[in-house]
């Protein structure tokens, strides 16, 4: 088997999809899963799954073009989700368009929780809004608006 992997990245929120990118078919838009995926030369870390503490977020590196910067910053500001999927396929059966037989080998869905990078490359961090620091439980605290100025007993 001439094995190859293709990556697909979808940025979405609820039922709205804002971007579909793929990084395998150079300078081509391909159809897959009922949608068109445009070419974007990105790459990503490996994907891990495990306990909450053991799993790290993943990073996706993209070229720092105006369009990409705009997309990722909007995703960051609006806490959009990004779904990264790895597919494996046999290049001998075709290498110009996604094969219907290709196998999903990994999938990761994360919230865009960080963006950093250099002038030519930008890195989008996908993770969880479960912040590792800070206290979030219970979610509400006594405030003046809620309870006024409490009595002193």
């Amino acid at each position, binding site marked *: 088997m001439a094995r190859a992997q293709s990556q697909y990245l979808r940025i979405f929120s609820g039922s709205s999809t804002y971007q579909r990118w793929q990084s395998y078919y150079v300078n081509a838009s391909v159809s897959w899963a009922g949608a068109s995926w445009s070419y974007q030369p990105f790459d990503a870390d490996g994907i891990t799954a495990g*306990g909450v503490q053991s799993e790290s977020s993943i990073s996706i590196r993209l070229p720092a073009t105006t369009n990409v910067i705009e997309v990722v910053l909007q995703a960051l500001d609006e806490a959009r989700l990004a779904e990264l999927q790895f597919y494996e396929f046999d290049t001998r059966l075709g290498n110009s368009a996604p094969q219907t037989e290709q196998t999903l080998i990994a999938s990761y869905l*994360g919230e865009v929780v960080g963006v950093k990078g250099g002038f030519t490359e930008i890195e989008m961090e996908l993770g969880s809004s479960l912040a590792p620091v800070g206290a979030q439980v219970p979610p*509400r*605290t006594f405030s003046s608006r809620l309870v006024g100025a409490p*009595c002193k*007993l």
Partner: protein
Amino acid sequence: MSIISSDPLAFLIGQGGLVGTPLKEDGAGGAENLDVSQRGAVIGEPIPIVFCRRVDGVGGVLISPPATEARFSNSLINSVTASYHLVLSEGQIDSIQVRDVFQRSCRVGSFSQTYDKRAGTFIPGNFIVPRAGYTTPECPSYCGTGGQYTGLSTLAFQATYPDGIDQWNRQVHCFIRGGIHVTRLLDSTLGASNNVVDLLLYLLRNSSKVPAAQIDTASLLAGATFTNANGFWFNGVVKESTNVRDWINATLQYFLLRQTRTGGKEAVSPLLPTNNNGTIKTTAVSWEFTFTEEHIIPDSFEITYTSLADRKPFCAMVLWRQQDDNGIGVIRTAEVRYEGTAADGPFEQHDLSGFCASENHAVKVGAYILSKRRHVTHRLQLGVKPDAFNATLVPGDLVRVRLDRIASTGSNSRHDYLYEVDRIGKSLAGDVQLELTHFPIDAQLASVVAKEVDAATGAGVILPTGLTGITCDINSDSDTTVPEDTSLPPEDWNLPDESSFESEIVEIDSIDTSGLGGIDSSLPSNWTSTGGASENSDNLSGQISDAPSITPDNNDGDYIGQSYTLKDCPSGCSVQWLRDDQPISGATGDSYTTTTADIGAEISSLCCGQKAAGSFEAGTDPLPPPPDGTNPNVRVYWVAGNVYCANPSNAGASVDVKRGGTCTQGKQVYGYITVDYSYWEAGNVKVEATEFDPDSCIAYDGCNADPSTSCGEPFTQFGVFYPYGLPDVCDVTRYRTDLYRKISGNWTKVSSGFNFSYYVGHNIPASLERLVAVYAPT
């Protein structure tokens, strides 16, 4: 060797009357100290989440809510009536029955419970007055103000005590049988729940705002089924401020659940194999995949055995809470150990009393800890090649690793064990790193740990709390009625609202900075506000100008009459153009057009007193340079024009719509061409407009043949033409305008021709002004 459980307090049963006293006072520590002063709420402290559901005599929790408001008054005989407004929980909880409200450990007083607003009707304050012959009670004088109480369950409590009984300031306790209402996973019903997975889901959504797409609901449902089927219920209060991850890790393990993140989704899975109905599976297990030599990447096999010191026998002391129907819990301890081991320790304590109201739950947790420690002998790390497992394997799955160990000496052996997947790492190269934990099974392929946990049960001894001996109850311990909600609607209270808070905000503009010494609070005069900020809108591009400069920025083709513009000079800055570094009189605008006085001089510009980048040497060529790609002998001469609509019957006299407007169908159109160019001598230029079709010349008029005679000098307008008689005036019609120049006394057509378009019946954009160009030869 089996796991057994015992409880030291069970011996108290045989001690008769000694039992009552310690349990009566504090529920042996099962509840917070009952006889303490009523505590007040503190701004900034977390609002507790009461999460419980009493089912079949198990569950519920006693809470000691803080007060936000109070009222004290005394009667003529100096009996003190104390009222407290209490915050019970975040969210809406079940209605509280009369029998479930205590002050100290006594069922006294009356109350009114509500949600999302202030409870009761009492006005806070100290209304204690001296009564003749009595000692004036010393009640607190600051009794609080009203609040919105949005999304909170509240309760107004009131009790009256005779003179001399200083118990009006004692803590109020409530036994909650049904806590915060959530949509239960198992029956999709909104109501109180005792399932920890419901609580987890609530916290994920409300504390961390985890999007629904990132929550693996199917796994949560499986987890909820598991905890419910095995009686692992949560009956407690979430009140300590903590990190949600820490809470998850500290809590879920005691429900024999693990939280995982698979594919980025928050998920849970039982720590034990389960049957379809969620019960612990004690029969043969199956595994998802078998790894053999052909799957494993060479040299990636790494095994770590657990030291014997970590596997030595110990006694797990698991604390839980006996929660009787009378409301006041009793802390119990289940000592779980392998029979015949660790009778004198070592002891390992696990406190589940905050949420566990079931002895069996506590014992099974202890059994799980013991059994894992005893039977799990090693952990394994593997690097494996990609294969069919790749897409389906998730943490918690069982896999089998079967490898033959062939030695040059001695007999061959086989490494053949079941493992539980702890962690999966998939690299871009395709290899997969697995972290596995030994999963011990017996000869029937059943999980050893599961069987031991399933078999472990508590002694089932229920201790009397001694509360039946309490005689201070005013209300009946069997009064299950719920008092009426007498609360007023929020609009009837003088409560702080959004606007009143806003009014306290000091406007930045009004801050007096005059006393700030050397700090200059004013902005430079040439700075301007960029308006309201938005997220990620502070890209300097387009908001803060680049350094001022002159454009065009080169000397190529400079000619007299060319216009230069100072760009990026901040608004408000003074501008002064310079000729050989000397100010040019009157040249203080953003643009400057060279004149014959500039020939050979260097022209530059000042912006706020600073020289702008770039300068140019004014050329001597009197004509503009040719546009790119055109005949070098043709030069741009003017670029202006307007399009008007007019009534054809009164053309030129009645202009209906000017540029930017819309020509009405049926109206005539005319236009004129404006020239603002003083270089060419007057009387030497004229323009003719013709229909694009050269065979049908259209009359033109305007300033006659010699515009200078009718339009003045320098001519600012000439060549006005009226294309009357157009066959289709409201269609797109194209015109050609030719430029004539008087050369040696003769009119010579010098233009190469150009097009002029009217868009009648459509919006006329201002850009049409630039559609006209005249080319003249050098």
